[in-house]
């Protein structure tokens, strides 16, 4: 085995340990935001298609460019705020944990309420986030208020 392979193997073992321990813990504290399985699957599908390039597979974003989705008030706070971001896009100068981000987020208003609800639920319930689910009705309400 090459040194690199050995290291990977070691990391793999440790990662497996961590995930075993983690999954044990997870079963005792069910994440609130995972919603139904079908909604979670759809949320991941929408995330992969529309969000992943910029926010990355692990939700950590891109340094200086695209904000992280992990542990920020933009994601975990008031649901109205994150629904508005998804519908309107985002082009403000924000600082998150001391970092600023330059790229514009386009609007995703073309997506159905259900898809937006599922993807926001997915984001709020993965990557180490544990916020409650977003319902399609909540998206519809914000959309209607915005279109007034």
């Amino acid at each position, binding site marked *: 085995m090459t*040194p*690199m392979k*050995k*290291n*990977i*193997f*070691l*990391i793999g*073992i*440790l990662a*497996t*340990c961590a995930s*075993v*321990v983690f999954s*044990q*813990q997870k079963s*005792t504290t069910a994440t609130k935001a995972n919603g139904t399985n079908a909604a979670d699957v759809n949320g991941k599908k929408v995330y*992969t298609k*529309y969000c*992943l*390039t*910029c926010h*990355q*597979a*692990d939700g*950590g974003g*891109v*340094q*200086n*460019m*695209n904000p992280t989705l992990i542990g920020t008030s933009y994601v975990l706070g008031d649901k109205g705020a994150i629904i508005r971001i998804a519908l309107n*896009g985002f082009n403000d*100068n924000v600082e998150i944990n001391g970092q*600023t*981000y*330059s*790229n*514009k*987020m*386009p*609007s995703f208003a073309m997506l159905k309420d259900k898809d937006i609800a599922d993807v926001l639920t997915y984001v709020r319930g993965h990557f180490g986030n544990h916020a409650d689910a977003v319902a399609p009705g909540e998206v519809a309400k914000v959309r209607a208020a915005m279109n007034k």
Partner: protein
Amino acid sequence: MKQRILSVSAACLIAAIGLLSFQVNTKHAAEHQARNAGLKLPAGFHADMIADTTGGARHIAVADNGVIYVKLLKAKNGKGIIELHQKSDGAAEVVAGFGDYDGTGIYLKDGYLYASSNEDIFRYKLDKNNEVMNPGQPEKIVTGLINRREHNSKSIVLDNAGNIYVNIGAYSNSCQVDDRQPGSMGREGCPILDSAGGIWQFKADKQGQGYGDGVRYATGLRNVVGLDWNQQLNQLFVMQHGRDQLHDLFPELYTTKQNALLPAECLYALKKGDNGGWPYMYYDQIQHKKILAPEYGGNGKKEGGQNAIDPVAAFPGHMAPNGLLFYTGTMFPEKYRNGAFIAFHGSWNRAPEPQAGYCVVFQPFKNGKPSGQWEVFADGFSGSAEKTASGRADHRPCGLAQGPDGALYVTDDTKGAIYKITYKK
């Protein structure tokens, strides 16, 4: 339940300890890499990490007596430029900080230190020891350059005729009606090009210049971070960051695999009045053609950019060339003389495909033209192949500078490491 977690953890720990003993056997290989600050280099080269936590170290300039100036992405405690002195033990020590502004550009020329914020260019007079004389009172050479966050860094370089060149990046990906909106088409006669998306030329010694005093030296360049004045040819060379998101924006025309490789990151040799073709076209390094951008009716095959110049070299997509340096030293072997080093910051836009870059590349030159295939010169900044693929790199190369002895300096803007690469026969 708790007991089970503990037993699983204990088993893992034992396995890990067992494997650690294996690690001892690979100590030599690890030491070899550790000697080079974690970098993989060609035979005969050696790297030291002379500083490790300066913060977001962007561009770097090294004076003829070895004094180092680094521009920080974000000013820390009111200090956006740091000065370092190299000690006899090989480490570099921060001795001063000044310049209360964020930014990227820094350059030394004829007794002055030039530095840029994301809107302005300043210069500081140096004394005979290359120390800044009045760090609190720079001359503001250029002011009011456009900053709309996207591509706002203002990289700078000087020629030998008293001019300074500054990149003004386009505040857009591809001049769509709605920036980065899937399917949104391109704006006719892209108005961004009036004030951005090119290289502007100003006088290096005149204070208070604005757009009206400058010359749009070259246009149709989306965003340039790495640029250098080629002393042998007396000509400006730039590395363009190619456009993003061909698949996200036009999924029916481009697969994620095509998106990962296209378009090329291009090296351009510029003359006054040149046009790089952005946003109407991009360069496809696989077809070796200028291709009409999908926002302007392209389909991945139709050619475009009839008025645009060709790149002199083209590299795989999204690797983000943030530093360019023509090597003029004599420390490195002959083949490196007058060739180009390029610091690739590393990709993000290749997702969901694996990311790439996070390395310093060498492009050989002969008689003023690229000659032969480029090669990876320094690799391993990310920390591992997995960290490169995921984009979660430990270090990301950004700025390049040549020391008076011919050593090559590389900055990292993630943790702020500064590497010094030397060669011994």
